[in-house]
């Protein structure tokens, strides 16, 4: 999503969080971009809670904020984590 499009977005309360995450997960360089998520998400009009949860990889909070579980899982894997470890990580944080 380019800058013009992002700045013009309106939508549901959960839309921008899902849009931003989807764009990162689908980006061809996504695995590299997670190293500086703050820069990637800077252009998205996220509220503070969503931005903080994304930067801190707070998956429980992301779910609370309405990030679709499938995208939570993709975001987790994008950080180089083994997908099969997700359940244990989530259980450990809950």
């Amino acid at each position, binding site marked *: 999503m380019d800058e013009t499009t992002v700045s013009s977005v309106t939508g549901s309360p959960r839309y921008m969080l899902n849009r931003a995450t989807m764009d990162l997960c689908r980006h061809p360089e996504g695995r590299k971009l997670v190293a500086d998520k703050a820069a990637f998400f800077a252009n998205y009009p996220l509220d503070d809670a969503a931005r903080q949860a994304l930067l801190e990889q707070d998956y429980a909070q992301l*779910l609370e904020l309405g990030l*679709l*579980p*499938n*995208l*939570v*899982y993709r975001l987790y894997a994008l950080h180089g984590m083994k997908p*099969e470890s*997700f359940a244990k990580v*989530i259980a450990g944080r809950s």
Partner: protein
Amino acid sequence: MATLCLGLATSHLAHIINTPELGDPKQVAIFNAGYERLATALERAKPDVTLIISSEHLNTFFIDNMPAFAIGMFEAFGGPIEAKLRAYPLPYRRVPSDLAFSTYLIERGLDEGVDWAVIENWDVDHGFMVPIVKIDAAGRYPMVPVYVNCASAPMPSPRRCYAVGQWLADAIARWDADKRVAIIATGGLSHSVGSMQMGWIDQEFDQRFLDDFCAGRGEALARLTDDQINAAGSSTGEVRSWIMLAGAFAGRSAEKVMYEAIQGFDTGCAQCIIR
């Protein structure tokens, strides 16, 4: 007129191809043997065309524009899309479809209250491709892909899914073609990809669901609520494809081929045949 000749239902998780080592070997063998039985059933039924009903996983549709139901209208489609995006064990392949059949379903549906979203170019994801590869490895059977939203609430209600399944059977019976039609439903049963419950399998829900499905009590499945389904896992909504199949074969009993709660796959895995 066309004949509805077979119904198959199966879980569609990609672990069975990509990472089978995560599952208990005995359970994985049972799952694979089940796929072989489904393949044999399809071969014996000799369908001219097969509808395959599945959810997707935000690979084609996103919350920008999320249809409840969609259908492919083309002579062929491809998949899995994952193989175009990254290294993926299941290679991308072309799948023949049936333009005349899909066009008929779309035209009849739009006139009779099933307002399909229409897809004329589609790289489907593993939800379709894993069962296709496992059941029709040689690519002999034309497949018409049907999408049901199980990825993002609000989703079509079980009651609506059942009704659309009933409509499909009725429309197939009215299709002026000497064709045999099979339906494959894919997805479920209980699982929770990416949510706090991931790893938990609601075996009680699965057993109740299978009991009703196999006894031909589709009306009971149609009465399930979103809350009841969601309580069994954040991804359990994929049972909507099974409910559509139950509608298409309303009142018909099904044979349970297998059920295994495969912990390494984080999923209650099931397969059934309706003859």
